[in-house]
């Protein structure tokens, strides 16, 4: 591949243009006279001056330096990188959906409101919840919304002393970060030797200052919290609420429901479980479902059906208000809605069954060469440890980088924090046995080399556009933008 490291700015040629705009067929306003010189820009922003073909080539070439789900296997644990059906993209770009303004008269957006209303019903059924809001833009914002609801609920009961949120030490980093942002004090509890919530530790922190517990189930080790009913009983007994982090919902669709487990609030990552593309880091969508008692606290507006018309209901006195503009990431919701409509109830259950079978198959085929700290039947993902290989100087990071040369996106590394040299593998249901076998072979080959020739693994990747990058340098002397003078 011909290397072209230039930025788009470095391809700029003064006077070159790449646009075609409608005619300016009205009288010209004199800017200086109208607004005053002081309001106007002294110098133009240093935007590139390039042609359309320059732009297309530049970004097409950049795209070739990127790896997507369509490029190959992407077993990034906790992120559920399943295949994204193409039809869902086509539906999201229908003009009747994409070219609609959020502040139009509700009567002129009945199609979109119907999608929101029906999506609420679909997700409520999948989660076992009463109502779902689609407003949160991502899982982390769903968490924040859920925590605001927990706060509002306790305050509405004049129970002001509940200031603590409990999270397990294996939880996602967003859990404690969201809790702190929502104004709670964060209490971490350890996992027991089975990798699940330590009930005695939980008991010891439960009192009337606890607002709630946040839990992922299956948890980040890919293990189902078997004591979930006991946990929810304990938390509820002390007056707290239970929050379900839906990152791992792909394991249990149609098999078990957070609502039935005793959770009061649950978020869903539409970009994980419901196959909407991750966009290189977003946009996602993080709807949350709540039980009946918490429905009055949901963000406004809620879409309701009155007679045969869908309306936006803002008259909800207990509502927490708004966490984001408008109604959420609607174009993402459309894709997820389409996905559910094409899967049906049996299809979704089979998704979870295949996701769990695939994860167990890889686990079983790697257990003799890698350490698996909690080695029993897992759900949709599992965590192995490269500790054995690390003794020879080959870390989880080295293994990840070698997988790049084998043509795979590596698993999540160094998470959860409770496992040393962790590699979290989530194959998802959309992968064929042939793909799983190829990945297993690569992992076994790397393990073998780690024993016989560890040095050969230290310089990977060798086949990628760039080799290992100096992250320390990037953070120590941050260069966060190009500057015209640096030309």
């Amino acid at each position: 591949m011909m290397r072209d490291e230039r930025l788009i700015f470095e391809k700029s040629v003064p006077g070159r243009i790449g646009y075609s705009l409608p005619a300016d067929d009205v009288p010209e306003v004199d800017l200086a006279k109208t607004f005053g010189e002081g309001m106007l820009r002294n110098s133009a922003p240093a935007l590139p001056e390039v042609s359309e073909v320059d732009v297309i080539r530049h970004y097409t070439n950049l795209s070739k330096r990127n790896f997507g789900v369509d490029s190959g296997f992407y077993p990034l644990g906790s992120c559920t990188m399943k295949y994204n059906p193409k039809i869902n993209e086509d539906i999201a770009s229908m003009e009747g959906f994409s070219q609609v303004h959020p502040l139009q008269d509700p009567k002129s957006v009945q199609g979109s409101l119907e999608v929101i209303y029906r999506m609420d019903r679909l997700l409520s059924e999948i989660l076992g919840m009463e109502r779902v809001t689609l407003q949160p833009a991502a899982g982390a914002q769903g968490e924040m919304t859920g925590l605001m609801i927990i706060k509002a609920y306790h305050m509405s009961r004049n129970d002001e002393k509940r200031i603590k949120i409990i999270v397990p030490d294996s939880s996602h980093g967003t859990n404690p970060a969201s809790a702190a942002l929502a104004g709670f004090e964060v209490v971490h509890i350890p996992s027991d030797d089975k990798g699940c919530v330590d009930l005695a530790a939980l008991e010891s922190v439960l009192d009337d200052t606890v607002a709630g517990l946040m839990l992922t189930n299956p948890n980040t080790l890919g293990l189902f919290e078997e004591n979930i009913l006991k946990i929810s009983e304990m938390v509820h007994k002390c007056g707290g609420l239970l929050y379900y982090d839906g990152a791992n919902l792909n394991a249990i669709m149609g098999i078990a429901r957070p609502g039935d487990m005793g959770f009061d609030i649950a978020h869903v990552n539409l970009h994980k479980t419901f196959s909407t593309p991750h966009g290189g880091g977003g946009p996602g969508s993080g709807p949350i479902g709540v039980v009946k008692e918490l429905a009055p606290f949901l963000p406004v507006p809620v879409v309701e059906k009155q007679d045969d018309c869908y309306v936006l209901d803002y008259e909800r006195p207990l509502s927490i208000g708004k966490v984001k503009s408008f109604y959420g990431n609607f174009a993402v919701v459309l894709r997820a809605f389409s996905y559910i409509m094409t899967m049906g109830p049996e299809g979704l259950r089979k998704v979870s069954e295949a996701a769990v079978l695939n994860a167990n198959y890889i686990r079983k085929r790697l257990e003799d060469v890698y350490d698996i700290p909690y080695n029993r039947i897992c759900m949709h993902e599992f965590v192995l440890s490269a500790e054995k290989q690390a003794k020879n100087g080959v870390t989880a990071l080295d293994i990840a980088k070698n997988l790049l040369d084998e043509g795979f996106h590596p698993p999540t590394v160094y998470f959860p924090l409770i496992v040393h040299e962790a590699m979290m593998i989530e194959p998802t249901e959309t992968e064929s046995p042939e793909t799983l076998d190829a990945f297993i072979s690569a992992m076994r080959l790397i393990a073998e080399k780690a024993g016989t020739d560890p040095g050969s693994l230290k310089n990977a990747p060798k086949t990628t556009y760039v080799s290992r990058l100096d992250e320390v340098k990037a953070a120590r002397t941050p260069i966060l933008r190009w500057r015209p003078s640096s030309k």
Partner: protein
Amino acid sequence: MTREQQDEMLAAVGVNSVEELFSAIPEELRLKRELDLPAPLSEYELKKQMAELARRNADSGRNLCFLGAGIYDHFIPSAVKHITSRQEFYTAYTPYQPEISQGVLQSIFEFQTMISELTGMDAANASLYDGATALYEAVLLAVRYTDRKEVLVARSVNPEYRRVLYSCLKYSGIIIKEIGFLGSTDQGKKSGTLDLAQLKAMINENTAAVVIQSPNFFGIMEDIKAASEKAKEAGALTIAVCDPISLGVFEAPGNLGTDIAAGEAQPLGNPMNFGGPLLGYFAVKNPYIRRMPGRIAGETTDSEGRRGFVLTLQAREQHIRREKATSNICTNQALCALAATVYLSLMGKAGLKEVARQCINKSSYAYKALLETGQVSGVFDSPFFREFVVRPGTAPGKLNEILLKENIIGGYDLSVEYPELSGCWLVAVTEKRTKDEIDLFAEKVGRICREGGNA
């Protein structure tokens, strides 16, 4: 997988059935029925049904859109969609593995550069959910930096943003106070701009930040410099919410004393999408770089000394810092940021300026055309960008209803969020509108008002 393959895999795992894989789930928790969801549709049936739903919306392709209020119907070149539809971009995740993510990382770096250039700031992050949440993050930064608890927010800031601030800061101990605008009463000046005298009276040693929007919600250009000077005297930060298209012709907030620029970049190559996804931007001056929320891409070198890009300054973030992180944000809006980057590359210096100029010329023409009908009166007396406030003879709600029947999406009814502007109508005109369309619009508005809203 085929039945045979499934059996082989089950055997390899050492279980007899798929059910056995779920034995960790207690029996009483197992759903004993199928989910109550509609039966699956084929691809063709789905497309048909969704097309039917889409037809129930009045979209801006089949209707003339004069609605703005924070989300705008700008022209998007075809090339944008072709780039964002490349699977390498849209099916990838956050660039955790930089060696195979240089495409996304470099595009973010270019996005950060463009936002910094437009706003006149030293650095920008990789984007946030939307303008409203970007403003919320900016307020948090200011409160932490100054260790003060009060924030003065112009009432002429987008009401949707203020709603998000009120909700998300409710239990934070941060106090929001609003500064009014001139022209909200029958007396005094009618400029529609921030009441500087009130700002002067309200600002004190407890003020963490002053939040000002320009063009403000009424489309009027604010004097950011005057506000930021007041803020600086009091030791408070200035947060400016600026429309990125307007920055094609108007002075960058970074050159007017702004510490943080935050807002909505949807107008840059992103469709309205019924309000989501949007694209929040966030840019700061040097002292605040390490306090920015969200993802940031930075330049570095690889082991052979070649230029490359990584996610950087991650010590701020939730996956490292957990409850001590600057924000809980995990994702950005990478694909929307890519669309904005491609859009700005295509437009370039000249194109962006041209779009901004057309917005000014065409909205100004529309304002005059509406006033000339004799059925619509002006409300404020300041120059505006792309959007303006008028008082039509017929109530905005009624007027919009009738216009829609004639395939026109009318302006925003200000009565909803501004009781003091009851009966006022916020009209937006982008470069997409032609003179003929504007004439038609004015003619119809005039006629409807003359007929007293009886369609």
